[in-house]
């Protein structure tokens, strides 16, 4: 299945792009998706404890299973205002 991945702030800078589309095994969880990017960009590992995941524009647990067409992001601590 295909999911869309968005990157923001420091995560965007580390990954070097604002979005991606990736093929995953059916039923993969957000944490498995994150692991794929961490392998490609080891600098992400240090930031993992301060990231929150989102799925379809809602905060989601790292254990949430993904479905085809989902939109996922790994959000750094927010600093609007």
């Amino acid at each position, binding site marked *: 299945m295909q999911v869309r991945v*968005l990157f*923001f*702030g*420091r995560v*965007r800078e580390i990954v070097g792009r604002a979005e991606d589309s990736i093929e995953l095994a059916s039923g993969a969880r957000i944490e498995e998706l994150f692991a794929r990017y961490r392998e490609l960009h080891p600098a992400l590992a240090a930031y993992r404890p*301060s990231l*929150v995941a*989102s*799925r*379809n*524009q*809602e*905060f*989601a*647990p790292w*254990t*949430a*299973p993904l*479905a*085809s*067409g*989902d*939109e996922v*992001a790994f*959000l*750094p*601590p*927010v*600093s*609007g*205002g």
Partner: protein
Amino acid sequence: MTPAAEDTIQLVHEPIDTVALAASVRAPEDGAVATFDGCARNHSRGRATLYLEYEAYEAMALAKMQEICIELHSRFAIHGVAMVHRLGRLEIGETSVFIAVSAPHRAPALDACRFAIDTLKRTVPIWKKEYFADGADWADGELPPLPAETPSRKAAS
């Protein structure tokens, strides 16, 4: 009270018209308008700031701002809400976020305005990068509330 349909929730890439927004929430039934104007200040963590850049997960940020607005109406006896955040490059002194809340009485207007900015800073996916003479850094942020480990059942959009 007038429904939230008149509320203004926006992300903009140009200067925020705070005067028009403060006026927009005001009706003859209101006795109070509280506003909060967050602006780019010239220092951060002891360093002189040159300018700021904001970016957002725009669709999710608007959804979260809308959620805050709905919560304001359910928690406080208020009338109108305007909540606008600016994105892109901001010079020192420019407004990054503006919130205005009207109500018949002062306490709900003030309480709601405060709840709105406190919640926005905790839950809305917007990020600020501070540019200094000797570099740039992402502002320390706040970790949004972690969802429970029960997967949400919201369908893909």
